[in-house]
């Protein structure tokens, strides 16, 4: 059921993008939010909530910006790959340190590290452009020079392709031996050790994957906006990823994209029709979800499916 819903959701996004060209950017942004939130949701499977994962979006985006400015003419796809590799390398190093901690310490350490990088991005003006950020010229896409509209259409298609692959791949990971061992950390880490498994190693692998996903979202953000500013790594962005993960639920990989869709839709319409109180609307939405569906929207769907006798 969730898989069918995922296909339907991605198809609707594509059709919306074609019918309403203005919606391409918000759609790509929502998908990017979904990718990043999926990264956060991976860690939530192990019971660890990171309040600083926007750090990897910033690293992915700035890797794209630095590379694009140093090597003009480099293809957009290569820039994305470099963004992901950059965030993975950072995630690998930071992960060695943070996977030693659990609960609030894990969350706050991630937040602290992201704030250090956020501050540096704002202060190192000569290198990063400070709070003005760095502009990225529109790169070629698969060696094709594209106009703005065609470029956005290509990015929308690519982001949908990435989203579909990520839902499939990460869901397989959730159900794999590595993914189930990751979920086991949440309920009994001691037992894992007494089964010969290293909880830290399992968590580090997951952290690396989550950094890669958030890095990919940051690299995509950079390309679609054509501008990278320190805000991409700010604490409130990390909070939004956590918000979306809770909203969508971590029971299925599609939950993050579902949450991102609802988040972007509420934000878009609340900002348009209830200017000034859109944060209030988002807050109330989250409270309702926590009360009605503590496992997120996807958890609610799985429960409904189970209650009518089918498989979740």
């Amino acid at each position, binding site marked *: 059921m969730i898989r069918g819903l995922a296909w339907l959701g991605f198809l609707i996004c594509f059709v919306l993008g074609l019918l309403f060209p203005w919606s391409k950017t918000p759609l790509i942004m929502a998908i990017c939010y979904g990718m990043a939130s999926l990264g956060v949701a991976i860690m939530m499977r192990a019971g660890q909530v990171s309040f600083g994962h926007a750090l990897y979006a910033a690293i992915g985006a700035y890797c794209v910006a630095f590379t694009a400015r140093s090597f003009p003419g480099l293809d957009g796809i290569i820039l994305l790959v470099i963004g992901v590799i950059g965030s993975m390398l950072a995630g690998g190093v930071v992960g060695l340190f943070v996977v030693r901690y659990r609960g609030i310490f894990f969350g706050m350490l991630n937040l602290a590290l992201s704030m250090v990088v956020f501050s540096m991005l704002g202060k190192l003006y000569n290198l990063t452009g400070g709070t003005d950020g760095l502009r990225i010229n529109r790169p070629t896409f698969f060696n094709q020079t594209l106009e703005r509209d065609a470029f956005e259409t290509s990015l929308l298609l690519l982001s949908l392709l990435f989203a579909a692959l990520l839902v499939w791949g990460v869901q397989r990971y959730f159900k*794999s031996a590595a993914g189930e061992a990751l979920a086991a950390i949440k309920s009994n880490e001691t037992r894992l050790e007494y089964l010969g498994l290293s909880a830290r190693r399992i968590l580090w692998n997951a952290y690396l994957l989550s950094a890669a996903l958030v890095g990919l979202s940051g690299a995509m953000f950079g390309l679609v906006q054509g501008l990278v500013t320190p805000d991409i790594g700010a604490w409130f962005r990390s909070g939004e990823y956590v918000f979306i993960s809770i909203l969508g639920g971590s029971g299925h990989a599609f939950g993050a994209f579902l949450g991102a869709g609802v988040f972007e839709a509420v934000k878009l319409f609340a900002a348009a029709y209830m200017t000034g109180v859109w944060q209030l609307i988002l807050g109330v939405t989250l409270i309702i979800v926590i009360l009605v569906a503590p496992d997120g929207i996807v958890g609610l769907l799985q429960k409904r499916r189970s209650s009518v006798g089918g498989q979740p």
Partner: protein
Amino acid sequence: MTPLLETKGLQLSFGGVVAADNIDFALQRGERLAVIGQNGAGKTTFINICTGFLKPTAGRVFFDGHDVTDKLPRQIVRLGLGRSFQLPQLFLDHSVRQCLEIAAVGRSGQLPFFKSLSDAVDQHEINDTLHLVGLSARADEPTLALPEGQRKLLDIAMALMLQPKLLIMDEPTSGVASEDKMALMDTVMQALKEREVTSWFVEHDIDIVNRYATRVAAWIAGKVAADGSPAEVLALPQIQREILGHP
């Protein structure tokens, strides 16, 4: 013959409390050791030291010819020392079968990223173990749904999936209804016998000790106060008085 497990001069204190007081101890292959003693005598501390959870302030632990004193629990487990707990340590978000499957991948040390957990392990082996401990009918139920006795069995079955040379069970019958204790121990001991696993269990019920142990070690104040056959140890006046509570 080299003992399967041996400790030399093991010492550990918690503040002023001596939990392990210069313990020299050896366990031979094939033995069924029962460890008895009052609460706080240092039985679980001794298990925690032998399995790498606690580090002694002095002394060494040897398992199957390896010095394991400074090793991590998972490294000791890989050498063939399995353990179950006084409070069953299960994966509460998983089913009974999944708990055994995770234990099976723990033994292999392989954690595939794309192969499903159920495909990554030998399901015949999982089914055999479920059958051995009498949990076949509840295989797909969440562990939270199990009564205490079956949780204990699952805890032991997870350790058995590691194909250990030695299984240490910390109070396998605590929290189990008295009428179910013998049935549980019959099941466990039969499983251990079939797999030729040396065992060591901590137990307060003397009927169980008499029925299943080939050797008894009595712990008093962090020391092995008596060690020998059940008949010998349980007949000692000090054991009668200080552990069994006889006047």
